[in-house]
């Protein structure tokens, strides 16, 4: 019996070493939050550990772990959509106001000179630029961040994202557009 537990532990240590990176990337892209991704991956390993006896080597361990993680992600969104709180709505209203405020009464840029963010080659190798962009991402309302993040995942369809976020497709493109305006403005203001 003890031998069995020892084997199980060894097996799990190997899986943690081999699969954590991929599981984390997946969870992060799906949820856009480092902390949530860490929680979900940890829960995945713990659930897998408890259910290890049911794992009969019929599928590859990695596939098995990913299927557990996917269930955790679905649960996460289910709980999330129920608890999208007043605070989130308020944050969204504020962000909407900031975006509207970028344009004048004729719908042209209010401060055309403010657009200092020029695209240079190798800009993404610049650590300062990356950390500015990261901070700007954090300032987005959660729903916007999730929308813009999942957009760049080739393996998630727009339909699927809309379902997760509970928005219509037309509304989704509005969110993407507003999130981009927000990011661009934030970079213009904070990155020199």
């Amino acid at each position: 019996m003890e031998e069995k537990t020892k084997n199980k532990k060894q097996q799990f240590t190997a899986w943690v070493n081999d699969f954590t990176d991929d599981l984390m990337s997946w969870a992060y892209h799906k949820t856009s939050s480092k902390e949530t991704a860490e929680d979900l991956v940890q829960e995945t390993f713990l659930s897998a550990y408890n259910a290890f006896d049911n794992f009969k080597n019929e599928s590859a361990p990695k596939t098995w772990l990913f299927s557990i993680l996917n269930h955790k992600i679905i649960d996460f969104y289910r709980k999330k959509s129920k608890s999208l709180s007043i605070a989130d709505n308020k944050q969204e209203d504020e962000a909407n106001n900031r975006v509207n405020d970028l344009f004048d009464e004729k719908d042209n840029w209010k401060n055309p000179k403010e657009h200092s963010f020029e695209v240079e080659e190798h800009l993404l190798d610049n650590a300062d630029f990356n950390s500015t962009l990261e901070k700007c991402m954090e300032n987005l309302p959660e729903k916007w961040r999730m929308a813009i993040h999942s957009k760049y995942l080739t393996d998630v369809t727009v339909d699927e994202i809309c379902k997760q976020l509970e928005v219509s497709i037309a509304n989704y493109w509005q969110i993407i557009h507003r999130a981009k305006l927000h990011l661009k403005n934030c970079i213009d203001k904070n990155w020199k």
Partner: protein
Amino acid sequence: MATFFNTLLYSCKKATELMDSSEAKPLILMQKIRLYFHKLLCPPCECYAKSNPTIASFLKNTQPLKKEEMDEFKRNLRKKIN
């Protein structure tokens, strides 16, 4: 003359909106032409168009944890199991 331009050209708000929505719904020829001239005359909008690929590749390349953080995270996971 000003009215003529106003009818011909989009506002900046409309122009940026079209740039983003064109991914979902391709623009028709007339929209493309109007957008082209708008960008030609409006450096901030031209700049907005150019910033899109940069933001996209940033998002594609973002990794959740730095190497040290990942090592620490794995260490904690192993500890929890053992």
